[in-house]
Protein backbone atom coordinates (compact mmCIF):
# COMPACT_ATOMS: atom_id res chain seq x y z
CA UNK A 1 0.00 0.00 0.00
CA UNK A 2 1.02 3.55 -0.72
CA UNK A 3 1.03 5.82 2.31
CA UNK A 4 2.76 8.96 1.14
CA UNK A 5 1.88 12.62 1.18
CA UNK A 6 -1.25 12.81 -0.95
CA UNK A 7 -1.31 16.59 -1.28
CA UNK A 8 2.38 16.91 -2.12
CA UNK A 9 1.96 14.33 -4.86
CA UNK A 10 -1.17 16.02 -6.20
CA UNK A 11 0.61 19.36 -6.32
CA UNK A 12 3.53 17.86 -8.21
CA UNK A 13 1.28 16.07 -10.70
CA UNK A 14 -0.73 19.22 -11.39
CA UNK A 15 2.47 21.25 -11.73
CA UNK A 16 3.81 18.66 -14.15
CA UNK A 17 0.78 18.88 -16.44
CA UNK A 18 0.82 22.66 -16.29
CA UNK A 19 4.54 23.10 -16.89
CA UNK A 20 4.69 20.54 -19.66
CA UNK A 21 1.90 22.37 -21.47
CA UNK A 22 3.38 25.85 -21.16
CA UNK A 23 7.13 25.44 -21.15
CA UNK A 24 7.46 25.40 -24.90
CA UNK A 25 5.11 28.28 -25.55
CA UNK A 26 6.80 31.62 -25.87
CA UNK A 27 3.63 33.43 -24.83
CA UNK A 28 3.03 31.00 -21.98
CA UNK A 29 -0.11 31.64 -20.02
CA UNK A 30 -1.18 34.37 -22.46
CA UNK A 31 -2.44 31.58 -24.71
CA UNK A 32 -5.00 30.77 -22.05
CA UNK A 33 -6.40 34.28 -22.48
CA UNK A 34 -5.97 34.51 -26.21
CA UNK A 35 -7.92 31.37 -27.07
CA UNK A 36 -11.33 32.43 -25.66
CA UNK A 37 -10.86 35.96 -27.04
CA UNK A 38 -10.24 34.66 -30.54
CA UNK A 39 -13.28 32.38 -30.26
CA UNK A 40 -15.29 35.34 -28.98
CA UNK A 41 -14.35 37.42 -32.02
CA UNK A 42 -15.37 34.60 -34.36
CA UNK A 43 -18.73 34.07 -32.64
CA UNK A 44 -19.42 37.79 -32.54
CA UNK A 45 -18.79 38.14 -36.25
CA UNK A 46 -20.83 35.09 -37.21
CA UNK A 47 -23.85 35.81 -35.02
CA UNK A 48 -23.90 39.61 -35.08
CA UNK A 49 -22.97 40.07 -38.74
CA UNK A 50 -24.05 36.88 -40.51
CA UNK A 51 -27.07 35.68 -38.50
CA UNK A 52 -27.78 39.20 -37.26
CA UNK A 53 -28.91 37.94 -33.86
CA UNK A 54 -28.50 40.93 -31.59
CA UNK A 55 -31.51 40.18 -29.41
CA UNK A 56 -29.32 38.95 -26.56
CA UNK A 57 -28.27 41.65 -24.08
CA UNK A 58 -24.55 41.84 -23.26
CA UNK A 59 -23.98 39.58 -26.24
CA UNK A 60 -20.18 39.59 -25.97
CA UNK A 61 -20.17 38.67 -22.27
CA UNK A 62 -22.92 36.15 -22.92
CA UNK A 63 -20.79 34.37 -25.48
CA UNK A 64 -17.54 34.73 -23.55
CA UNK A 65 -18.99 33.06 -20.44
CA UNK A 66 -20.40 30.22 -22.55
CA UNK A 67 -17.19 29.70 -24.51
CA UNK A 68 -14.95 29.67 -21.44
CA UNK A 69 -17.04 27.16 -19.50
CA UNK A 70 -17.73 24.91 -22.46
CA UNK A 71 -14.07 24.86 -23.47
CA UNK A 72 -13.11 23.92 -19.95
CA UNK A 73 -15.56 21.01 -20.02
CA UNK A 74 -14.38 19.92 -23.45
CA UNK A 75 -10.66 20.03 -22.70
CA UNK A 76 -10.78 18.75 -19.12
CA UNK A 77 -12.91 15.76 -20.08
CA UNK A 78 -10.72 14.72 -23.01
CA UNK A 79 -7.47 15.18 -21.07
CA UNK A 80 -9.03 13.42 -18.07
CA UNK A 81 -10.10 10.52 -20.28
CA UNK A 82 -6.58 10.01 -21.56
CA UNK A 83 -4.91 10.66 -18.20
CA UNK A 84 -4.54 7.08 -17.00
CA UNK A 85 -3.23 5.78 -20.33
CA UNK A 86 -0.90 8.76 -20.74
CA UNK A 87 0.51 8.21 -17.26
CA UNK A 88 0.92 4.46 -17.70
CA UNK A 89 4.56 4.69 -16.62
CA UNK A 90 3.43 6.02 -13.24
CA UNK A 91 0.53 3.61 -12.87
CA UNK A 92 2.76 0.64 -13.64
CA UNK A 93 5.47 1.75 -11.28
CA UNK A 94 4.03 3.08 -8.07
CA UNK A 95 1.03 1.80 -6.14
CA UNK A 96 -0.36 5.32 -5.65
CA UNK A 97 -4.14 5.57 -5.39
CA UNK A 98 -5.10 5.52 -9.06
CA UNK A 99 -7.82 8.14 -8.67
CA UNK A 100 -5.15 10.77 -8.18
CA UNK A 101 -4.12 10.68 -11.84
CA UNK A 102 -7.45 11.78 -13.42
CA UNK A 103 -7.98 14.11 -10.47
CA UNK A 104 -4.66 15.86 -11.08
CA UNK A 105 -5.38 16.18 -14.78
CA UNK A 106 -8.79 17.79 -14.16
CA UNK A 107 -7.26 20.07 -11.53
CA UNK A 108 -4.50 21.22 -13.87
CA UNK A 109 -7.21 22.25 -16.33
CA UNK A 110 -8.82 24.17 -13.49
CA UNK A 111 -5.73 26.40 -13.49
CA UNK A 112 -6.51 27.42 -17.06
CA UNK A 113 -10.13 27.86 -16.11
CA UNK A 114 -9.15 30.13 -13.23
CA UNK A 115 -7.13 32.35 -15.56
CA UNK A 116 -9.99 32.58 -18.04
CA UNK A 117 -12.62 33.16 -15.36
CA UNK A 118 -10.51 36.01 -14.01
CA UNK A 119 -10.62 37.49 -17.51
CA UNK A 120 -14.41 37.05 -17.57
CA UNK A 121 -14.92 38.69 -14.17
CA UNK A 122 -12.75 41.64 -15.17
CA UNK A 123 -14.75 42.00 -18.39
CA UNK A 124 -18.05 41.88 -16.45
CA UNK A 125 -16.92 44.58 -14.02
CA UNK A 126 -15.51 46.76 -16.80
CA UNK A 127 -18.76 46.59 -18.73
CA UNK A 128 -20.50 48.23 -15.78
CA UNK A 129 -22.52 45.25 -14.56
CA UNK A 130 -20.72 45.35 -11.25
CA UNK A 131 -20.48 42.94 -8.37
CA UNK A 132 -23.58 41.66 -6.59
CA UNK A 133 -24.29 39.57 -3.54
CA UNK A 134 -25.08 36.49 -5.69
CA UNK A 135 -21.41 36.20 -6.65
CA UNK A 136 -21.23 33.99 -3.58
CA UNK A 137 -22.98 31.38 -5.70
CA UNK A 138 -20.17 31.31 -8.25
CA UNK A 139 -17.70 29.11 -6.34
CA UNK A 140 -20.50 26.61 -5.66
CA UNK A 141 -21.61 26.56 -9.29
CA UNK A 142 -18.07 26.10 -10.61
CA UNK A 143 -17.20 23.50 -7.97
CA UNK A 144 -20.25 21.47 -9.01
CA UNK A 145 -19.11 21.68 -12.62
CA UNK A 146 -15.64 20.48 -11.70
CA UNK A 147 -17.08 17.60 -9.66
CA UNK A 148 -19.22 16.57 -12.60
CA UNK A 149 -16.27 16.61 -15.01
CA UNK A 150 -14.12 14.69 -12.52
CA UNK A 151 -16.89 12.10 -12.18
CA UNK A 152 -17.29 11.47 -15.91
CA UNK A 153 -13.52 11.58 -16.39
CA UNK A 154 -13.17 8.73 -13.89
CA UNK A 155 -15.61 6.65 -15.93
CA UNK A 156 -14.06 7.33 -19.31
CA UNK A 157 -10.45 7.24 -18.06
CA UNK A 158 -11.08 3.73 -16.74
CA UNK A 159 -12.86 2.65 -19.91
CA UNK A 160 -10.09 4.09 -22.07
CA UNK A 161 -7.61 1.64 -20.53
CA UNK A 162 -9.69 -1.31 -21.72
CA UNK A 163 -11.02 0.17 -24.92
CA UNK A 164 -8.75 2.62 -26.71
CA UNK A 165 -11.57 4.04 -28.83
CA UNK A 166 -13.06 5.74 -25.80
CA UNK A 167 -11.43 9.10 -26.41
CA UNK A 168 -12.98 9.38 -29.88
CA UNK A 169 -16.40 8.62 -28.44
CA UNK A 170 -15.76 11.33 -25.85
CA UNK A 171 -14.75 13.81 -28.54
CA UNK A 172 -17.91 13.12 -30.54
CA UNK A 173 -20.00 13.36 -27.42
CA UNK A 174 -18.53 16.77 -26.63
CA UNK A 175 -19.75 17.98 -30.01
CA UNK A 176 -23.29 16.78 -29.20
CA UNK A 177 -23.15 18.52 -25.83
CA UNK A 178 -21.97 21.68 -27.61
CA UNK A 179 -25.22 21.96 -29.56
CA UNK A 180 -27.36 21.17 -26.53
CA UNK A 181 -25.72 23.92 -24.50
CA UNK A 182 -26.84 27.56 -24.80
CA UNK A 183 -23.49 29.01 -25.79
CA UNK A 184 -24.74 31.46 -28.43
CA UNK A 185 -28.51 31.12 -28.07
CA UNK A 186 -30.92 31.80 -25.23
CA UNK A 187 -32.56 29.13 -23.13
CA UNK A 188 -35.88 30.72 -24.11
CA UNK A 189 -35.20 29.72 -27.75
CA UNK A 190 -35.58 26.09 -26.64
CA UNK A 191 -39.23 24.99 -27.09
CA UNK A 192 -40.93 25.00 -23.74
CA UNK A 193 -41.86 21.31 -23.67
CA UNK A 194 -38.16 20.37 -23.91
CA UNK A 195 -36.84 22.94 -21.47
CA UNK A 196 -37.22 20.90 -18.25
CA UNK A 197 -35.38 18.06 -19.95
CA UNK A 198 -32.79 20.40 -21.49
CA UNK A 199 -31.53 21.72 -18.16
CA UNK A 200 -30.66 18.22 -17.00
CA UNK A 201 -27.57 18.80 -19.12
CA UNK A 202 -25.12 19.83 -16.39
CA UNK A 203 -22.97 21.87 -18.76
CA UNK A 204 -26.02 23.87 -19.81
CA UNK A 205 -26.87 24.29 -16.12
CA UNK A 206 -23.31 25.38 -15.37
CA UNK A 207 -23.45 28.10 -18.01
CA UNK A 208 -27.03 29.19 -17.30
CA UNK A 209 -26.38 29.50 -13.56
CA UNK A 210 -23.16 31.45 -14.11
CA UNK A 211 -24.93 33.90 -16.41
CA UNK A 212 -27.84 34.39 -14.01
CA UNK A 213 -25.37 35.65 -11.43
CA UNK A 214 -22.99 37.62 -13.65
CA UNK A 215 -25.27 39.08 -16.31
CA UNK A 216 -28.75 39.18 -14.74
CA UNK A 217 -27.66 39.88 -11.16
CA UNK A 218 -29.98 37.13 -9.94
CA UNK A 219 -29.64 33.97 -7.91
CA UNK A 220 -29.56 30.92 -10.23
CA UNK A 221 -32.98 29.32 -10.80
CA UNK A 222 -33.79 26.69 -8.21
CA UNK A 223 -34.77 23.94 -10.67
CA UNK A 224 -31.51 24.42 -12.57
CA UNK A 225 -29.43 24.17 -9.39
CA UNK A 226 -31.28 21.13 -8.07
CA UNK A 227 -30.85 19.17 -11.30
CA UNK A 228 -27.25 20.37 -11.63
CA UNK A 229 -26.42 19.18 -8.10
CA UNK A 230 -28.15 15.84 -8.56
CA UNK A 231 -26.38 15.09 -11.84
CA UNK A 232 -22.96 16.24 -10.57
CA UNK A 233 -23.06 14.28 -7.33
CA UNK A 234 -24.52 11.30 -9.17
CA UNK A 235 -21.76 11.42 -11.80
CA UNK A 236 -19.10 11.63 -9.10
CA UNK A 237 -20.54 8.71 -7.13
CA UNK A 238 -20.92 6.58 -10.26
CA UNK A 239 -17.41 7.53 -11.39
CA UNK A 240 -15.84 6.59 -8.06
CA UNK A 241 -17.72 3.29 -8.03
CA UNK A 242 -16.92 2.27 -11.62
CA UNK A 243 -13.29 3.40 -11.41
CA UNK A 244 -12.80 1.27 -8.32
CA UNK A 245 -14.17 -1.73 -10.22
CA UNK A 246 -11.94 -1.09 -13.22
CA UNK A 247 -8.65 -0.09 -11.59
CA UNK A 248 -7.69 -3.50 -10.22
CA UNK A 249 -6.77 -4.75 -13.69
CA UNK A 250 -5.18 -1.58 -15.04
CA UNK A 251 -1.72 -3.08 -14.76
CA UNK A 252 -2.62 -5.94 -17.10
CA UNK A 253 -4.06 -3.66 -19.75
CA UNK A 254 -1.56 -0.82 -19.79
Amino acid sequence: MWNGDYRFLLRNLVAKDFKVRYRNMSLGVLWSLLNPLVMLAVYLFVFAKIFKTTAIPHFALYILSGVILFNFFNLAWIVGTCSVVDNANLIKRVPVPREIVPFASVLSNCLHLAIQLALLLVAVIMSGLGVNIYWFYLPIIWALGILFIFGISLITAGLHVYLRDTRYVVESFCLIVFWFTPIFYLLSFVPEQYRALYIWNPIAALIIATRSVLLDGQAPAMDVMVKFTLVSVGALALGMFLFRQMKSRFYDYL
Partner: protein
Amino acid sequence: MNIITVNDVSKTFRRRGGRKLLRDYLRDQFRGRNEGEVFYALKHVSFTIATQESVSIIGANGAGKSTLLSLIVGLAKPDEGSVEVNGRIAALLELGSGFHPELTGTENVFLNAALLGFNEKQTREMLGAIVEFAELSESMDQPLRTYSTGMLMRLAFSVAVHVEPAILIVDEVLAVGDLAFQEKCVRRIQTLRQEGRTLISVTHAPGVMLTCDRTIWLHHGEVIMDGPSSEVVPAYVSYMAAPQTGVPLPAVKPVFNTDTMRPRAEARAKRAMV
Protein backbone atom coordinates in the same frame (compact mmCIF):
# COMPACT_ATOMS: atom_id res chain seq x y z
CA MET B 1 10.84 -12.47 10.53
CA ASN B 2 9.50 -12.84 7.03
CA ILE B 3 9.09 -9.51 5.37
CA ILE B 4 7.69 -10.96 2.15
CA THR B 5 5.61 -14.10 1.82
CA VAL B 6 4.70 -15.28 -1.67
CA ASN B 7 2.29 -18.17 -1.35
CA ASP B 8 1.46 -20.40 -4.34
CA VAL B 9 1.06 -17.43 -6.67
CA SER B 10 -0.06 -17.75 -10.27
CA LYS B 11 -0.61 -14.96 -12.76
CA THR B 12 -1.87 -15.33 -16.29
CA PHE B 13 -1.75 -12.94 -19.18
CA ARG B 14 -3.29 -12.92 -22.58
CA ARG B 15 -0.99 -12.91 -25.57
CA ARG B 16 -2.70 -9.85 -26.95
CA GLY B 17 -1.61 -7.82 -23.94
CA GLY B 18 -5.14 -7.10 -22.88
CA ARG B 19 -5.67 -3.81 -24.67
CA LYS B 20 -8.22 -3.72 -27.37
CA LEU B 21 -9.86 -1.59 -29.95
CA LEU B 22 -13.56 -1.63 -30.48
CA ARG B 23 -13.16 -3.82 -33.56
CA ASP B 24 -11.49 -6.52 -31.45
CA TYR B 25 -14.48 -6.64 -29.12
CA LEU B 26 -16.85 -6.75 -32.10
CA ARG B 27 -14.85 -9.52 -33.77
CA ASP B 28 -14.96 -11.50 -30.54
CA GLN B 29 -18.72 -11.06 -30.43
CA PHE B 30 -19.26 -12.31 -33.97
CA ARG B 31 -16.74 -15.12 -33.94
CA GLY B 32 -17.42 -16.32 -30.46
CA ARG B 33 -15.14 -15.55 -27.55
CA ASN B 34 -11.53 -15.48 -28.55
CA GLU B 35 -9.61 -13.80 -25.82
CA GLY B 36 -6.27 -14.72 -27.28
CA GLU B 37 -3.97 -17.38 -26.00
CA VAL B 38 -3.59 -17.44 -22.24
CA PHE B 39 -0.17 -18.06 -20.80
CA TYR B 40 1.21 -18.26 -17.31
CA ALA B 41 3.56 -15.44 -16.39
CA LEU B 42 3.94 -17.09 -12.98
CA LYS B 43 2.96 -20.62 -12.05
CA HIS B 44 2.57 -21.73 -8.43
CA VAL B 45 5.44 -19.63 -7.15
CA SER B 46 6.14 -19.80 -3.42
CA PHE B 47 8.94 -18.37 -1.34
CA THR B 48 9.57 -16.17 1.65
CA ILE B 49 12.10 -13.44 2.12
CA ALA B 50 13.38 -12.60 5.59
CA THR B 51 14.22 -9.15 6.89
CA GLN B 52 17.65 -7.92 5.83
CA GLU B 53 18.05 -10.63 3.26
CA SER B 54 19.35 -9.80 -0.18
CA VAL B 55 17.83 -11.73 -3.01
CA SER B 56 18.44 -11.54 -6.69
CA ILE B 57 15.83 -12.80 -9.10
CA ILE B 58 17.22 -14.13 -12.34
CA GLY B 59 15.94 -15.80 -15.46
CA ALA B 60 15.78 -15.38 -19.21
CA ASN B 61 13.69 -12.64 -20.79
CA GLY B 62 10.03 -13.40 -20.25
CA ALA B 63 10.64 -15.65 -17.27
CA GLY B 64 8.25 -13.64 -15.13
CA LYS B 65 10.69 -11.51 -13.14
CA SER B 66 9.00 -8.19 -13.69
CA THR B 67 5.57 -9.71 -13.12
CA LEU B 68 6.78 -11.07 -9.82
CA LEU B 69 8.09 -7.66 -8.77
CA SER B 70 4.83 -5.97 -9.76
CA LEU B 71 2.94 -8.41 -7.52
CA ILE B 72 5.28 -7.77 -4.60
CA VAL B 73 5.00 -4.01 -5.00
CA GLY B 74 1.22 -4.31 -5.17
CA LEU B 75 0.72 -2.97 -8.67
CA ALA B 76 -1.06 -6.07 -9.92
CA LYS B 77 -3.07 -8.77 -8.21
CA PRO B 78 -2.29 -12.48 -8.49
CA ASP B 79 -4.90 -14.72 -10.12
CA GLU B 80 -4.26 -17.39 -7.52
CA GLY B 81 -2.37 -17.44 -4.26
CA SER B 82 -1.41 -14.51 -2.09
CA VAL B 83 1.42 -12.05 -1.57
CA GLU B 84 2.00 -10.61 1.87
CA VAL B 85 4.38 -7.79 2.57
CA ASN B 86 5.23 -6.31 5.96
CA GLY B 87 6.94 -2.99 5.71
CA ARG B 88 7.15 -0.18 3.26
CA ILE B 89 8.10 -0.82 -0.31
CA ALA B 90 8.48 2.46 -2.03
CA ALA B 91 8.27 1.40 -5.60
CA LEU B 92 9.39 -0.72 -8.40
CA LEU B 93 12.51 1.14 -9.29
CA GLU B 94 12.97 0.81 -12.97
CA LEU B 95 15.38 3.26 -14.38
CA GLY B 96 13.98 6.41 -15.84
CA SER B 97 10.33 5.44 -15.83
CA GLY B 98 8.30 8.17 -14.25
CA PHE B 99 10.67 10.80 -15.54
CA HIS B 100 9.30 13.43 -17.85
CA PRO B 101 11.61 14.82 -20.56
CA GLU B 102 10.16 18.35 -20.46
CA LEU B 103 10.67 18.81 -16.71
CA THR B 104 14.01 19.85 -15.27
CA GLY B 105 16.15 17.52 -13.19
CA THR B 106 15.00 19.10 -9.96
CA GLU B 107 11.33 18.97 -10.95
CA ASN B 108 11.69 15.32 -11.84
CA VAL B 109 13.29 14.56 -8.49
CA PHE B 110 10.37 16.25 -6.75
CA LEU B 111 7.77 14.38 -8.79
CA ASN B 112 9.54 11.09 -8.22
CA ALA B 113 9.93 11.64 -4.50
CA ALA B 114 6.24 12.54 -4.24
CA LEU B 115 5.31 9.37 -6.13
CA LEU B 116 7.48 7.34 -3.81
CA GLY B 117 5.57 8.72 -0.85
CA PHE B 118 7.79 11.47 0.50
CA ASN B 119 6.61 14.85 1.68
CA GLU B 120 8.04 18.19 0.68
CA LYS B 121 10.35 18.57 3.66
CA GLN B 122 11.90 15.14 3.23
CA THR B 123 12.36 15.78 -0.48
CA ARG B 124 14.17 19.06 0.10
CA GLU B 125 16.44 17.30 2.58
CA MET B 126 17.21 14.52 0.10
CA LEU B 127 17.70 16.77 -2.90
CA GLY B 128 21.27 17.83 -2.10
CA ALA B 129 22.46 14.29 -1.55
CA ILE B 130 20.75 13.08 -4.72
CA VAL B 131 22.33 15.78 -6.87
CA GLU B 132 25.73 15.25 -5.35
CA PHE B 133 25.60 11.49 -5.79
CA ALA B 134 24.51 11.84 -9.42
CA GLU B 135 27.26 14.45 -10.02
CA LEU B 136 24.76 16.65 -11.84
CA SER B 137 24.81 19.89 -9.86
CA GLU B 138 25.24 21.95 -13.02
CA SER B 139 22.42 20.39 -15.02
CA MET B 140 19.61 20.20 -12.51
CA ASP B 141 17.79 23.23 -13.98
CA GLN B 142 17.91 21.90 -17.53
CA PRO B 143 15.02 19.90 -18.97
CA LEU B 144 15.67 16.19 -18.93
CA ARG B 145 15.51 15.90 -22.72
CA THR B 146 18.87 17.69 -22.87
CA TYR B 147 20.54 15.00 -20.72
CA SER B 148 22.74 12.30 -22.15
CA THR B 149 21.71 8.71 -21.46
CA GLY B 150 24.45 8.42 -18.89
CA MET B 151 23.31 11.53 -17.04
CA LEU B 152 19.73 10.29 -17.07
CA MET B 153 20.73 6.95 -15.64
CA ARG B 154 22.87 8.54 -12.95
CA LEU B 155 19.97 10.71 -11.83
CA ALA B 156 17.55 7.79 -11.87
CA PHE B 157 19.86 5.59 -9.85
CA SER B 158 20.63 8.37 -7.44
CA VAL B 159 16.92 8.84 -6.72
CA ALA B 160 16.51 5.09 -6.38
CA VAL B 161 19.18 4.67 -3.72
CA HIS B 162 18.32 7.76 -1.71
CA VAL B 163 14.69 6.93 -1.04
CA GLU B 164 14.90 4.73 1.99
CA PRO B 165 12.27 2.05 2.03
CA ALA B 166 12.42 -1.05 4.23
CA ILE B 167 12.59 -3.11 1.06
CA LEU B 168 14.70 -1.83 -1.80
CA ILE B 169 13.68 -3.26 -5.12
CA VAL B 170 16.03 -2.61 -7.98
CA ASP B 171 15.20 -3.72 -11.47
CA GLU B 172 18.30 -3.78 -13.67
CA VAL B 173 19.58 -0.53 -12.24
CA LEU B 174 23.17 -1.60 -11.92
CA ALA B 175 23.82 -1.91 -15.62
CA VAL B 176 24.34 1.82 -15.98
CA GLY B 177 27.06 4.39 -15.89
CA ASP B 178 30.77 4.02 -16.25
CA LEU B 179 32.78 1.72 -14.04
CA ALA B 180 33.51 4.37 -11.42
CA PHE B 181 29.84 5.16 -11.08
CA GLN B 182 28.88 1.50 -10.96
CA GLU B 183 31.29 0.96 -8.12
CA LYS B 184 29.77 3.89 -6.30
CA CYS B 185 26.32 2.36 -6.79
CA VAL B 186 27.40 -0.98 -5.41
CA ARG B 187 28.97 0.73 -2.39
CA ARG B 188 25.76 2.62 -1.78
CA ILE B 189 23.71 -0.57 -1.92
CA GLN B 190 26.11 -2.15 0.56
CA THR B 191 25.53 0.77 2.92
CA LEU B 192 21.77 0.39 2.60
CA ARG B 193 22.09 -3.30 3.41
CA GLN B 194 24.21 -2.61 6.46
CA GLU B 195 21.48 -0.26 7.63
CA GLY B 196 19.22 -3.30 7.67
CA ARG B 197 17.25 -2.96 4.44
CA THR B 198 16.01 -5.90 2.52
CA LEU B 199 17.19 -5.95 -1.06
CA ILE B 200 15.53 -7.53 -4.05
CA SER B 201 17.37 -7.15 -7.30
CA VAL B 202 16.50 -8.22 -10.80
CA THR B 203 19.48 -8.46 -13.05
CA HIS B 204 21.18 -10.21 -15.93
CA ALA B 205 24.68 -9.46 -14.69
CA PRO B 206 26.29 -12.42 -12.89
CA GLY B 207 28.51 -10.05 -10.91
CA VAL B 208 25.46 -8.40 -9.37
CA MET B 209 23.76 -11.74 -8.67
CA LEU B 210 26.73 -12.82 -6.64
CA THR B 211 26.54 -9.74 -4.42
CA CYS B 212 23.22 -11.08 -3.12
CA ASP B 213 23.08 -13.86 -0.54
CA ARG B 214 20.42 -15.75 -2.29
CA THR B 215 19.20 -16.18 -5.83
CA ILE B 216 15.83 -17.26 -7.15
CA TRP B 217 15.92 -18.58 -10.70
CA LEU B 218 12.69 -18.27 -12.64
CA HIS B 219 12.09 -20.16 -15.85
CA HIS B 220 8.82 -19.77 -17.77
CA GLY B 221 7.12 -18.55 -14.61
CA GLU B 222 8.29 -21.34 -12.35
CA VAL B 223 10.94 -21.37 -9.67
CA ILE B 224 13.70 -23.63 -10.96
CA MET B 225 16.20 -23.07 -8.20
CA ASP B 226 16.13 -21.11 -4.99
CA GLY B 227 19.23 -21.12 -2.88
CA PRO B 228 22.58 -19.54 -2.11
CA SER B 229 23.84 -17.48 -5.03
CA SER B 230 27.07 -19.44 -5.15
CA GLU B 231 25.09 -22.52 -6.21
CA VAL B 232 22.28 -21.04 -8.28
CA VAL B 233 24.27 -18.54 -10.34
CA PRO B 234 26.81 -21.04 -11.80
CA ALA B 235 23.97 -23.41 -12.69
CA TYR B 236 22.10 -20.56 -14.38
CA VAL B 237 25.18 -19.32 -16.22
CA SER B 238 26.00 -22.75 -17.60
CA TYR B 239 22.39 -23.31 -18.62
CA MET B 240 22.20 -19.94 -20.37
CA ALA B 241 25.51 -20.58 -22.12
CA ALA B 242 24.09 -23.66 -23.83
CA PRO B 243 20.34 -23.97 -23.38
CA GLN B 244 19.91 -25.96 -26.61
CA THR B 245 22.60 -28.55 -26.00
CA GLY B 246 20.46 -30.26 -23.45
CA VAL B 247 22.05 -29.26 -20.20
CA PRO B 248 19.11 -30.40 -18.12
CA LEU B 249 17.34 -27.92 -15.90
CA PRO B 250 18.07 -28.85 -12.32
CA ALA B 251 15.14 -30.83 -11.04
CA VAL B 252 15.79 -30.40 -7.37
CA LYS B 253 14.89 -27.18 -5.64
CA PRO B 254 17.27 -26.78 -2.73
CA VAL B 255 15.52 -25.71 0.42
CA PHE B 256 17.02 -22.50 1.59
CA ASN B 257 17.43 -21.90 5.28
CA THR B 258 17.85 -18.19 5.77
CA ASP B 259 18.89 -18.35 9.41
CA THR B 260 22.02 -20.38 8.86
CA MET B 261 22.77 -18.98 5.46
CA ARG B 262 22.94 -15.25 5.78
CA PRO B 263 26.18 -14.33 7.60
CA ARG B 264 28.29 -16.63 5.50
CA ALA B 265 26.80 -15.42 2.26
CA GLU B 266 27.27 -11.83 3.26
CA ALA B 267 30.97 -12.33 3.74
CA ARG B 268 31.20 -14.07 0.39
CA ALA B 269 29.21 -11.37 -1.28
CA LYS B 270 31.66 -8.75 -0.12
CA ARG B 271 34.55 -10.69 -1.55
CA ALA B 272 32.72 -11.08 -4.82
CA MET B 273 32.25 -7.38 -5.20
CA VAL B 274 33.22 -5.72 -8.43
